């Protein structure tokens, strides 16, 4: 029997993996994909809890999150293309000029 706890656990694991990826990887596209994982783990939580409490609000939220994620993907990929044109690289270590 799969309870809501299983979903929440899976969602937590996915979120942790995503966070770990954002913190450790240098490739901007990978970081970007990790952020998507984090977003989707949150989506999973929303849906599981929505089902559990019998309220549709969580599902509506997921649509919003997906919309924002799509918009973010468009902006993020455009940024990366711009980065690459300047530096021939999408390694985040090369983008450290905004300091001190």
């Amino acid at each position, binding site marked *: 029997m799969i309870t809501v706890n299983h979903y929440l656990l899976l969602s937590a694991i996915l979120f942790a993996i995503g966070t770990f990826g954002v*913190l450790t990887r240098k490739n901007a596209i990978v970081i970007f994909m990790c952020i998507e994982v984090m977003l989707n783990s949150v989506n999973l939580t929303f849906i599981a809890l929505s089902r559990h409490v019998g309220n549709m609000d969580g599902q509506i939220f997921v649509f919003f999150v997906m919309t924002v994620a799509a918009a973010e993907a468009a902006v993020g990929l455009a940024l990366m293309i711009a980065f690459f044109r300047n530096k021939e690289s999408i390694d*985040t270590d090369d983008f*450290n*000029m*905004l300091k001190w």
Partner: protein
Amino acid sequence: MYSNLWLIPFFPLVGAIFNGLFGKRIKNEAIIGGIATGLVFLSFLVAGQNFLKLLGDTEKVHELVMAQWITVGQLQINWEFLLDPLSAVMIMVVTGVGTLIHLYSIGYMHGEEGYYRFFSYLNLFAFAMLMLVLGGNALVMFIGWEGVGLCSYLLIGYYYEKKSASTAANKAFIVNRVGDFGFLCGLLTLFWAFASKGLWTLNFVQIAEHGYLLESGGLLITVVTLCFFLGATGKSAQIPLFTWLPDAMEGPTPVSALIHAATMVTAGVYMIGRMSGLFAMAPATMMTIAIVGGLTAFFAATIGLAQNDIKRVLAYSTVSQLGYMFLAMGVGAFSAGIFHLMTHAFFKACLFLGSGSVIHGMHHAYHHAHLHDDPQDMRNMGGLRKKMPITFITFLVSTIAISGIPFFSGFFSKDEILWWSFGSTRGHWMLWLLGAAAAGMTAFYMFRLVFMTFFGEQKTDSRAKDHIPESPFTITIPLMVLGFLALVGGYLGVPKILGGSNRFEEFLAPVFEHAQHLNGIHAHGALSTEYTLMAVSVAVAVVGIFVAWVMYIKNPELPGKFVARFEGMHRIIFNKWYIDELYDFVFVNPCKKIGTFLWRVVDARLVDGVVNGCAWVVKGIGTGLRYTQSGYLYNYAMAMVVGVVVIVGIYVFK
């Protein structure tokens, strides 16, 4: 009935604003000077109308409330004017002499840069002075009191590019501030004293009526009146605050005549007259005033003996004559003091304007010959009576008047003061002696001035001596009018023993009689004493004139010998008893040192230290914290994660 009183100060104010705002664009001297003079003349007409109305009126004290000003609790202070015989005399003098001097300035200031500025200030002065004399309560008077001080400052510093002029202006203003501080102290103490008795007022009529609330001769009233007297010494250049007036001669000559001889400097005398009810109740203050006045008359006269600058002689003469007025106030001869104020306004304004006419001519001649000699130094003059006959005659008349020769105006007023200082219940023969000695010296230095300037051979540089013209008619007309007044002005107050009825004193009686009767002030003595004193003072004056004649006409080498003989004495007098140096040493330099200390130590170290210290601390923290901005994405991401974890942790585990 007297509802148009407000027009009197209003006209000059309009002129001041008009010339101040538009004068620079108008540029036409005739329009600027004409408007300024015309408006003061209008004031004179209104003043004259009110004066005549008051003469025929049985009720002598009239108050006109224009508007409410300050209303706090039981205290009600209005914009109000007070017309009584005292202020009526003053407005006639201020607007009359003021009109003449405005007219004179049209010619005298011709071609000056800032012509409009001069007339704007001059009109502003007339406004402030009229507020001072017409003010119905002490606060309105104080506005005028401060206003004339401001205008005096502006006009002394008229040639502000000149270092000496701006310094003199500062000196006048600062010394006046000391006096004004006294005035304010007196005002507030008086207010407090009356208020603690349940009378909330600063109105002069009420002050005069309710003087009995204060203990006669008590400490409180002595302190109040002494504070007011300190204010008067500042404004009227008495010991100890007289040093600014001679320096004030840096201003244009019409200013010296109007402000520093005829009107503003008499404000202190007027103020004492206005509050004579209070002053009469404080014998200690009255004695102080009499002694200070007598000493000032004497010391200023000694300084006048040795000066060579024509305006400086007149300046010290003014200080000395103001001393006479204070002497009169101090011995309770209030109306005699005001009488001398009026005659002095006539003859001293005439003398200053005459000296201005001479300077104008000398300046013209030097300018013509491209010389840079001092046009004010009497040693460069001599023999001018043929070049400037009108100036000479009017000047001579005024000189005779100030010297106290019988049947000229100064004789009547000065003699009355001397008689009171001897015979008054508040007088003393030593005060009389000071006054009489000063009278002799006055006659000497004034005739010395006349002889050096108008008689003898001309000592002007030969290239310039034939180019000294008589002044234009705008200058000579005021001279003639004032000379005439200096001749006949005294007949308003011919004393009883000379067969007159002393109409001036009778006219002022409603103002002063009460205070004099209440405090037992009157002059007493045998007729023979009065005649003797009169004869002595005339004799002293004649001797002074004779000595001047011997020293400067008959034996012109005598002054040199005299100076060589008494060199030390001469040096002390020539250097004005080193009073300026003394004040520099005692007050000015310590003040400057304190100022330097506050600047170098308190400001530069302490204040700046605190301000810069704050900046240094902030800068240090910033320097440390800026290394947190590594520019690496994962650092920022880590910070975010840690932040989120901490915040969520706080919520979860609280």
